[in-house]
């Protein structure tokens, strides 16, 4: 063991990377492979009134066209399977898939897309999650624009009695914070290669970060048992959560099943940026009850997460955010309401931290504001309130192996900040 523990170990795939022998999915070329391009919605919201792909199908160089009608199984996928592979009727965001063409090359496929006759009845979209929650707002979804958790329209965290905490507080500190949409922008855009293999199984080379999870969804879409799909992954040119959702495998797989020829479907960078899932934008409202000595004794947080046209991992992201947004502090009274709203934008889903990063950003700003309100240094407020061993979190879990204070001390050291002696004397082992 001593030869490994504490020793740097060279990457097993390092030589492959520096010699460019590492094979990414777009590096795979199969004999006779055809290229897919997808017709996407030019409008943010609407209803497809007419779709005619016959002229595209007849075009020389085109091997096949697929639409919602060509989905043999369930035309829905996602952690919450609410997004169609191809929308049959309702358009919920600009860039939603309507049809796909396979042709001898991408130029020909692009030309074929122009031959598809598409008539959309455009409807008024809604982009602002707060407007989407207003009565009479355009409906992104027939069931309403607010996601229904098991606990209703909000994800609830209840701990102690916040009203009592506010009443006992010396100061009330409020703040509203927003974070913007982010694109993961991995260096490798989404791509998929699919073919029918020699044993008549559907083989798919994928960039998935989440093979077995996606395999389950694909079996439902293709209406195939798992043993009829060879899902080949392994090498991902960066994902950061964007490859936690399927973007190409379902389209490539459906096309291969229909035309029984090898196909490649890859996003251009612009398609990648415009249509794939994002880190959703958030708004956070905080209200804290604070004692003059620096203790936060009550924290109320209301969050609004914009998940775009489909759920993606949005509700799960709100789950994780709600659990952690009150921060790593021993606050005896916590109330969190997390709201997940649909708008006519590309679906938002996972990205590095599933909403925790955004919550932390808001919490840090709020805690700094708390410090300002009581005339203390933010370090002091963090140290005073930080979880100690055995503290209870807002979801009633018991903090074990606490190390926040030690981590903050080390951070201060690295940042060249001299902490006062009474903070240096603190420990996660007790208050």
């Amino acid at each position: 063991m001593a030869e490994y523990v504490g020793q740097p170990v060279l990457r097993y795939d390092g030589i492959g990377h520096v010699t460019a022998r590492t094979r990414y999915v777009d590096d795979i070329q199969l004999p006779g492979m055809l290229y897919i391009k997808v017709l996407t919605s030019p409008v943010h919201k609407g209803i497809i009134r007419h779709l005619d792909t016959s002229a595209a199908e007849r075009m020389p160089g085109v091997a096949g066209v697929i639409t919602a009608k060509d989905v043999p199984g369930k035309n829905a996928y996602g952690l919450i399977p609410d997004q169609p592979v191809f929308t049959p009727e309702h358009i919920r965001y600009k860039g939603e898939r309507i049809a796909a063409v396979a042709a001898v090359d991408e130029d020909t496929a692009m030309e074929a897309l122009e031959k598809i006759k598409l008539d959309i009845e455009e409807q008024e979209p809604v982009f602002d999650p707060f407007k989407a929650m207003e009565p009479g707002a355009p409906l992104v979804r027939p069931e309403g624009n607010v996601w229904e958790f098991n606990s209703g329209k909000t994800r609830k965290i209840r701990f102690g009695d916040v009203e009592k905490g506010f009443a006992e507080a010396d100061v009330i500190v409020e703040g509203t914070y927003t974070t913007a949409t982010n694109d993961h922008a991995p260096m490798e855009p989404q791509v998929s290669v699919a073919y029918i293999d020699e044993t008549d199984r559907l083989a798919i080379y994928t960039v998935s970060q989440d093979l077995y999870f996606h395999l389950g969804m694909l079996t439902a879409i293709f209406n195939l048992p798992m043993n009829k799909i060879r899902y080949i992954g392994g090498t991902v040119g960066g994902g950061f959560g964007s490859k936690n959702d399927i973007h190409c495998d379902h389209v490539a797989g459906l096309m291969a099943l229909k035309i029984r020829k090898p196909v490649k479907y890859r996003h251009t960078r612009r398609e990648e940026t415009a249509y794939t899932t994002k880190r959703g934008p958030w708004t956070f409202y905080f209200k804290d009850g604070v004692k003059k000595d620096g203790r936060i004794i009550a924290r109320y947080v209301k969050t609004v997460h914009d998940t775009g046209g489909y759920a993606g991992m949005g509700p799960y992201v709100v789950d994780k955010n709600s659990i952690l947004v009150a921060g790593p502090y021993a606050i005896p009274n916590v109330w969190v309401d997390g709201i997940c709203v649909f708008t006519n934008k590309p679906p938002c889903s996972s990205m590095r931290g599933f909403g925790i990063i955004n919550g932390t950003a808001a919490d840090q700003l709020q805690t700094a504001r708390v410090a300002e309100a009581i005339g203390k240094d933010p370090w002091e407020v963090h140290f005073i309130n930080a979880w100690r061993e055995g503290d209870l979190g807002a979801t009633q879990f018991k903090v074990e192996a606490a190390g926040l204070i030690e981590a903050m001390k080390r951070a201060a050291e690295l940042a060249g900040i001299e902490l006062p002696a009474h903070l240096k004397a603190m420990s996660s082992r007790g208050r």
Partner: protein
Amino acid sequence: MKYVLSFNLNGLPVDTLVKATDTLLDVLREKLNVVSPKRGCDNGDCGACTVLVNGEPVRACLTIGLTVAGKNVQTVEGLQQDGKLHPLQRAFHEHYAAQCGFCTPGMLIAAKALLDKNPKPTREQIVEGISGNLCRCGTYVEVVEAIQAVAAGKYKE
């Protein structure tokens, strides 16, 4: 309409049939199966397709294939000599300068272009040399250290 494109690729002559609008990246990846230059953006932004044309670094995705007729094109496939890794390849590997690896071929070529002209660059010149190459994993620090190590002569050919 297809044109015959002839050029030197990593020291050997190649001929291939191309369309006027095929980029050098299309030619290398799709026609010749030389896949070290990566298709990251087709827009000249990411640098993953950087190759050398007559010793100068260019974006393969911004270069119309036919314009390299008669020229020398070098890619990462041509970096190894007699089966031995190029000093930059060894340094990148040993400095953990590749994480997902997708930007690595472009980074290596950008680094080679820099060192060929300026074998002893300052840290600032190295940063400038790779300023057109994006890495989303965030290996910039390791990449700079790897290039510094080569420039310092720690990886002799």
